[in-house]
């Protein structure tokens, strides 16, 4: 299993960092190969430039500005996102990663003839995990329609292999969260990662059908 972890939080020591460490620990236990991109630490530049937009469909030249990221997307069979939800969506940093890295011929195939639709291009990815934290309550997040979750689980999800195994976990009301709830959430994250990797599947009969 080859896992690309895309992690996005500006502050080391945040709860998202704890989620990241839990995810990495469970991946290690499952014996997965892992590549981690910490977008803030890398100083990733999230703004799609004028040149990138005009050369957007010029494949494979369009990959050059983000070649290292593209190589890891091509390499992986499992994609994991870890980030805080801001304004119900992805931080600009992570949104920019989607804008600049998920390019034509990397993530999807542009229409070649008239009236054709965009075709998925990430069929080599068969597992996706999304782990986030929300300042808003679960109720409010669902009322708004959980746009960040949808951008990844459905928007990016549409590009992956059919019947991709997906897991999602969010902690709500982060600003007033207490220690026991945070601990319980990390345990939930660990369980979800195990479900994603199939680790301990021998103990879980329902997972054996996968």
């Amino acid at each position, binding site marked *: 299993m080859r896992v690309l972890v895309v992690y996005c939080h*500006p*502050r080391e020591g945040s709860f998202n960092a704890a989620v990241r460490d839990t995810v990495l620990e469970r991946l290690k236990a499952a014996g997965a190969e892992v590549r981690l991109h910490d977008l*803030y630490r890398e100083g990733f530049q*999230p*703004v*799609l*430039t*004028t040149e*990138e*937009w*005009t050369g957007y469909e010029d494949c494979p030249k369009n990959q050059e500005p983000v070649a290292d990221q593209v190589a890891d997307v091509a390499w992986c069979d499992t994609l994991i996102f870890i980030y805080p939800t*801001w*304004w*119900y*969506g*992805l*931080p*600009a*940093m992570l*949104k*920019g990663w*989607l*804008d600049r890295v*998920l390019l034509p011929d990397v993530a999807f195939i*542009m*229409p070649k003839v*008239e*009236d*054709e*639709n*965009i075709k998925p291009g990430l069929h080599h990815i068969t597992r996706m995990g999304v782990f986030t934290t929300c*300042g*808003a*309550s679960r109720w*409010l997040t669902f*009322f*708004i*329609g959980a*746009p*960040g979750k*949808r*951008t990844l689980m*459905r*928007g*990016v999800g*549409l590009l992956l292999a059919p019947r991709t195994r997906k897991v999602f976990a969010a902690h*709500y*009301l982060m*600003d*007033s969260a207490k220690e026991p709830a945070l601990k319980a959430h990390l345990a939930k994250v660990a369980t979800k990662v195990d479900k994603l990797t199939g680790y301990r599947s021998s103990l879980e009969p329902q997972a054996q059908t996968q």
Partner: protein
Amino acid sequence: MPRAFVLFAHPVPESLNAAAHQVVVDTLKGKGWEVDDCDLYAEEFNPVLSRKEREDYHDTAINTAPVQAYVDRLRAADAFILCHPIWNFGYPAILKGFFDRVMLPGVAFDLQDGKIAACMNNIRKIAAVTTYGATPMRAFLAGDPPKRIFKRAVWGTIRPEKMRYIAQYDMNNITPEGCKAFLARVQKEMEAF
């Protein structure tokens, strides 16, 4: 004179989105609006919320300092119009960063125990003028996240008297006539805004 704050986020002046933006600005001016035209790419807006900003996020005494000029422009507006493409079922990063960094607690909303109260009472009308690569069906299947942010989250923090969502889908298959029709629709909407 009523004031419109137009937030524009497209990197290429020759794009249909840029043309729509120009129609918005010209039409509003023609109808007697004073237009504050904020071109995020031209102004080289930095969309990345920094570590310091994250730490000060909830402190309404100091959280606006790094972006005070943008906060002032928002607060001076009677109408708020977004002109932007949809990329990967979301806002371009440069626009998402405007929400992250400028639409702060104490500016766009008051946050208490996860409950949100509106606080941009100066703005009475909002509109989004936007272009999708996706077809309407594909956008619907993805749950159309940017439309939800606008029609629910932005609406909720402003509670405007009027809201318009003017979208062109399936940009990859659009004809010149389709472009013209879209621009005409934008003009008509802005004349009636």
